[in-house]
């Protein structure tokens, strides 16, 4: 296994991934994100637990008959309907605890990662121009495509480490503050909801900022992207809660509100339970397609820039 890894990291792509991970962690960006998440985790879990909100949600999820309210807009009038639902099977307390995590602490962590990580990602390519490493890299047989691919995968590999720490930390905090939870579904929550987001969204920012000559302008793009993501998420969430069923925009929205709603809100809001895991995956698939499109554009631009230099 060690030999396989050594050989993999000795290829140009493997080497890029390895050293991009090192570079990202040695700069302060990801460390700042990590410490922010640690602080946020402590504040979120303990304050929510102390306020009694988590227990109320656990109680709500545990009820055999569940009563929830739904906002309906029809004929220009807004009404609130009460809907009752009886679960098909008795619920496992550990699984309920994970669900409670999913609707309380996880959404806050997800939004923070959605906003903070792209700011770190923005200068992945501009950094090479700032440190004048571009000429050295260009003088090797490394192609533009492999360069972009290496940057994206290197960033993602660095983020996987970040996510692992965040997962373990939040799990530990939840265990202390709330109690036992179902570990497989907890891990699945992070892997299905957050891991794809950490691949697609920061990669989009890397590619969008790849054309910037300076680090400052690249970081400005990162900041603008953060605000845009917040904005798009807001639009997506308010649309879903108004209409209740996904529309085309919800799938192509670059911040994937369907995923957020499915994991973060649908368990306690029956009006959103028309969203399925299939919708979430479809949203990720479309996001991957959007990323491929932007990657192609960035690659074409890089080649054109080299040709005209």
């Amino acid at each position: 296994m060690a030999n396989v890894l050594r050989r993999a990291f000795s290829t140009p792509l493997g080497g890029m991934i390895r050293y991009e991970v090192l570079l990202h962690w040695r700069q302060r960006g990801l460390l700042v994100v990590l410490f922010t998440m640690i602080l946020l985790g402590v504040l979120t879990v303990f304050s929510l637990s102390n306020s009694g909100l988590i227990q109320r949600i656990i109680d709500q999820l545990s009820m055999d008959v569940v009563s929830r309210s739904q906002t309906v807009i029809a004929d220009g009038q807004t009404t609130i309907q009460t809907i009752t639902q009886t679960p098909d099977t008795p619920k496992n307390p550990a699984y309920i605890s994970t669900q409670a995590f999913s609707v309380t602490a996880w959404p806050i962590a997800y939004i923070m990662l959605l906003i903070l990580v792209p700011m770190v990602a923005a200068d992945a390519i501009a950094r090479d121009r700032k440190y004048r490493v571009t000429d050295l890299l260009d003088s090797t047989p490394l192609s533009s495509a492999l360069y972009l691919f290496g940057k994206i995968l290197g960033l993602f590999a660095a983020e996987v480490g970040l996510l692992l720490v965040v997962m373990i930390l939040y799990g530990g905090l939840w265990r202390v503050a709330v109690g036992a939870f179902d570990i497989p579904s907890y891990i699945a929550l992070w892997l299905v909801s957050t891991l794809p987001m950490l691949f697609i969204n920061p990669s989009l920012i890397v590619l969008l900022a790849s054309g910037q000559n300076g680090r400052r302008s690249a970081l400005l793009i990162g900041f603008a992207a953060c605000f845009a993501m917040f904005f798009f998420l807001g639009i997506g969430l308010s649309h879903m809660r108004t209409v209740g069923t996904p529309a085309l925009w919800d799938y192509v929205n670059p911040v994937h509100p369907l995923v957020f709603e499915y994991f973060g809100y649908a368990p306690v809001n029956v009006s959103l339970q028309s969203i399925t895991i299939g919708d979430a995956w479809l949203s990720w698939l479309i996001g991957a397609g959007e990323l491929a499109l932007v990657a192609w554009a960035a690659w074409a631009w890089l080649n054109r820039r080299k040709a005209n230099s």
Partner: protein
Amino acid sequence: MIEITNLTKTYAGHIHALDDVSLTIGSGMFGLLGANGAGKTTLMRIMAGLVKPSGGRIVVLGHDMASYAGQQATKALLGYLPQELGFYPNLSAREFLDYLAILKGVADPKIRRTQIDTLIEMVRLTDAADRRLKTYSGGMKRRFGIASALLGSPQLLIVDEPTVGLDPEERIRLRNLLADLARRCTVILSTHIIEDIGASCTQLAVMAKGRVTYQGTPAEMIAQARGHVWTVTTAGEAPLDSGSGDVGSIVSMRQMSDGVQYRMVGEHLPNATAQAVEPSLEDGYMWLTRGTEKVSSG
């Protein structure tokens, strides 16, 4: 072997960086001499595959640089030390060399480690190899740059102004290192420091305003200036025109006990007191370029 035929490069704004350059570069150490803005760096960047020419043809080690395949094949055989050396400040020298070696295609970890250890020792960075590059002095960074250019045992080494910022001892050491390397591969050295060329290059070209104004050996360049180099001693003022209308260019001035000795290059004897002297490479260069400092009559 590098064959350059009618090479041109025009940047946006009609800046003609290279204008119909034709050169043949064989094995050994080849010097590229010229003032700032002469086109040396542009030519080197084209040879390294970093910049596409606007016209002409360039064949490096049998590979036509017009095609992508040719460029990639050349880059696998090339070592490049740019004028402005870049590095990741948060990586150590060993780490960055390892990274570059991987990108250059040195896949075997053992071979890579051996190469890096050898290069680090060659450039005398063994004690600092595991320190982060941001802690390096200017000379150490240059030495690191040479080591990075030598990764993968290149057949062609392109070094752009490698001695800039080095103290005299470092410069001599680096020149000797490059001369030693020139026995094994082709080295193209670009500089505006003439001593660097004279000390080690077997062939050289002089560039001015994007054109090659001379190609030949250092000895031939010196021979061109023979009979056109004089020393004149005056009380202090610059030599006046003796009637020829052109006293030439001042190459150097030296304070002597009996006045100021001017070394001059020109078409005619500056004045009756001038003495002809054996030209140096610097004189040859000045004779070619004729004129960073013309002294007008009166």
